[in-house]
C-alpha cells in the first residue's frame, strides 16, 4: 500500500516508461531486502555452528559435569562453570529485582500520572540512558559507584539486613552488588519503555469504568492497568533479563573477576559473559574450548529467554488487536 501511494505521483508525471523502471526498482528492492533477511539467518546459524565447534573438546572432556563443578584452573586444565552460572544468575536476577518495580513505576507515571506535556521529554531521558556505552558505565562503576557503595550503601545494608547472609559484613568496591546496580541502570530503559507500550494497550474504556465506579487512580491502576498488562510486563522483564545475562564489558569492569560461590553479594564474583570477555584472548586451546562451552550455555539461555518473552508479547499483541 505505502509503495503504491509513493510512486503514484511520479508515474502520473512521467508516463509509462517510468512505471517500468519503478517495477524493476521494486523487484530489486525486494531482492536486496530478502538477501539481508536471509543473511541474518545465515549469520545466526554460522555463529551457533562455530560456538559449538569451539566448545567441542570441552564438552567431550567435561560433559554435563562442567555445569556443576566450580574449579576454573587454566594452569592445571580443570574447568567448571558453576561459579560463573551462579554469578550470572545472581547479578541478573538481582538487577531485575531492582529494575522491575522501578520500571513499572516509571511507566505508570508516564502513562497515567505525568502531565501530558512532560511525558515525552521524560521518556526520552529514560531511553537516552540506554544509549550510554557500557564501557563508560563500567568506568563510572569502578571510579565512582563502587567506592560509594563500598563506603556508604553496603555498610548501611549490612546494618539493617545483616542477618541475611546475602548482606555479609565484608565490603568491596568491586563485586556482585556493583554489577547488579550497573545492570539495573542498563535494563531500566528497556523494561520501562516496553512496559509503557504495554500499558498503552489497556483499553481506555476499562480504565474509565474503574474510575466511574468511584475508584481512585491507585484503584484504577491496580484493578485494570496492572492485571491487564501482566503478561506484557513479564515479557519486558524477560527481555531485560536477557540483556543483563549477556552484558560483558561493564560487568567485567565492576564485578571483580574472582572465582568462587559466596552468599555475600558484596564480594567479587564472575559471570559467564565477563569470563569470556576477560580470558579468551590469552587462553590455551582447552581453556578457549571451555570458554566456548560457556558461550554455548549463554546462547541456549538467551534463546530460551527470548523465545518465552516473544510468546508472551504475542499474547499481548493479539489481545490489543481484539480490543
Amino acid at each position, binding site marked *: 500500500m505505502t509503495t503504491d501511494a509513493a510512486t503514484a505521483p511520479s508515474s502520473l508525471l512521467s508516463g509509462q516508461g517510468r512505471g517500468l523502471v519503478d517495477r524493476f526498482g521494486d523487484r530489486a528492492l525486494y531482492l536486496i531486502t530478502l538477501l539481508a533477511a536471509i543473511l541474518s539467518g545465515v549469520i545466526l546459524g554460522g555463529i551457533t555452528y562455530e560456538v559449538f565447534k569451539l566448545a567441542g573438546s570441552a564438552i567431550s572432556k567435561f560433559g554435563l559435569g562442567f555445569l556443576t563443578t566450580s574449579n576454573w584452573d587454566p594452569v592445571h586444565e580443570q574447568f567448571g562453570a558453576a561459579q560463573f552460572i551462579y554469578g550470572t544468575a545472581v547479578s541478573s536476577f538481582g538487577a531485575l529485582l531492582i529494575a522491575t518495580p522501578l520500571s513499572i513505576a516509571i511507566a505508570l507515571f508516564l502513562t497515567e500520572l505525568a502531565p501530558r506535556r512532560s511525558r515525552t521529554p521524560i521518556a526520552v531521558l529514560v531511553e537516552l540512558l540506554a544509549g550510554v556505552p557500557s564501557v563508560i558505565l563500567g568506568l563510572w562503576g*569502578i*571510579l565512582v559507584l*563502587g567506592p560509594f557503595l563500598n563506603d556508604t550503601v553496603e555498610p548501611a545494608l549490612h546494618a539493617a539486613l545483616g542477618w541475611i547472609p546475602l548482606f555479609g559484613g565484608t565490603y568491596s*568496591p568491586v563485586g556482585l552488588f556493583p554489577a547488579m546496580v550497573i545492570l539495573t541502570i542498563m535494563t531500566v530503559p528497556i523494561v520501562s519503555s516496553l512496559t509503557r507500550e504495554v500499558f498503552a494497550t489497556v483499553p481506555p474504556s476499562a480504565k474509565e469504568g474503574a474510575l466511574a465506579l468511584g475508584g481512585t487512580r491507585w484503584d484504577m491502576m491496580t484493578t485494570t492497568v496492572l492485571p491487564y498488562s501482566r503478561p506484557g510486563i513479564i515479557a519486558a522483564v524477560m527481555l531485560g533479563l536477557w540483556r543483563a545475562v549477556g552484558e560483558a564489558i561493564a560487568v567485567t569492569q565492576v564485578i571483580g573477576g*574472582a572465582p568462587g560461590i559466596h552468599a555475600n553479594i558484596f564480594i567479587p564474583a*564472575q559471570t559467564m559473559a565477563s569470563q569470556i570477555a*576477560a*580470558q579468551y*584472548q*590469552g587462553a590455551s586451546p582447552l581453556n578457549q574450548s571451555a570458554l566456548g562451552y560457556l558461550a554455548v550455555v549463554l546462547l541456549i539461555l538467551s534463546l530460551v529467554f527470548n523465545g518465552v518473552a516473544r510468546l508472551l508479547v504475542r499474547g499481548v499483541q493479539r489481545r490489543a488487536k481484539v480490543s
Partner: protein
Amino acid sequence: MIALGVAACGSSSDSSGSATASSGGGPITGAGSTFVAPLMSKWQADYASKTGDTVTYGAIGSGGGIEQITARTVDFGASDAPMTQDQLNACKGCVQMPWSLGAVVPAYNLSGAPNNIHLTGPVLADMFLGKITTWNDPEITKLNPGVNLPSTKITPVYRSDGSGDTYAFTDYLSAVSSEFKSQVGVGTEVKFPTGTGASGSDGVAAAVSKTDGAVGYLTIAYVNSNGFDYALEQNAAGNYPKATIPAINAAAATAKSVPPLGVSIVDPPASAANAWPDSTFTYVILPTSSDKADALKAFVNYAIGPGQSFAESLGYGTLPKQVIADDKTALNKVGG
C-alpha cells in the same frame, strides 16, 4: 573484547600499510603483547621517520599474538610469556627472541604505611595464597623493623584477563615458593585462591587505588607514572633494591644465553647483588619462512639495536650484549 579492540585500534598508528606486500623493506604487521605496546609506539614512529616503512601493531594481548602468528594472519607476533614447546610446534617454523624487558612490582595501597616496605618472595606468595591476611602479620613486621604497619586486611588484586604481568609475577612466586608453584603454577591466566580480579592494568590500578589494604602486581613503568607505592622484594643476595633500570639490567645480565624456549630471569642468583628479583623478558615471534623476511629482519634489528635507546625513559630495561648476539643468530634462521 570490545575494550581490547579499542585498545588495539588506539595503539596501532596506521593500518593502510598491511595490504601491500613487497620483498625487502616495506610495511609489516604484528600483534600481541600490551606490555611492549608503549615502547612499540615509539619504535613505530621513529622507524617510519628513518626508513619510511610502516609497522602496524595491534596490542591485543600476548595470547592473541601467539594465535595470530600461528595462523599467519600477521607478519610477527609478540608475547611476554615465551611460547611453550607445544605452542612452538603448533606455530610450524617459528623462532622467538627477547626484544625488551621490564619489571613487575607489588603495588599497594595502605593508609598509614610508608612507600617501599620490605617483603620477601615467600611472604608475598603467602599473601597471594591467602595464608597471610593482615598487614601487621609477624611475617611482614619482622621484615620492616621500625615501621608501624596497620592491622588492615590484605586484599590481593590480580588480573582476571590473560596477561604477561601475571606470567612474570607467577613465574617469580613459583620460583621462590614451592607451595605457590604446586597450587597456582605459572601462566598468563592462573587460578588465584583468594582476592579480587580486575581486567587490564587500568582495572588493577583502579582496584588498588580504591581499596585500602590492596596489593596488586603492575609493571614498574605503570606504577611510576601513576604514583603508586610498591613493596621492595628481597633478592637472592638478601638486598632490597628499588625496581630501577639498573636493577632490571642486573637481572638481565644473568641470562648467559637464550635457548629456543626463552629464558627466565626471575629470582636471579645472589651474584647479581642489586638485581630486581621479578624482571622479565618480552619476546618477538617470527616465522622462519616469510615473504617479508627482509622487512622483518630490518625491523627487529632496529628494535634490538637503535630502538633500545627509547627503553629507559619508558621504564624498560636495555637488552644485554649476549642476548642481542643470540637474537642476531636467531634472526639468521628467518628467510624467504
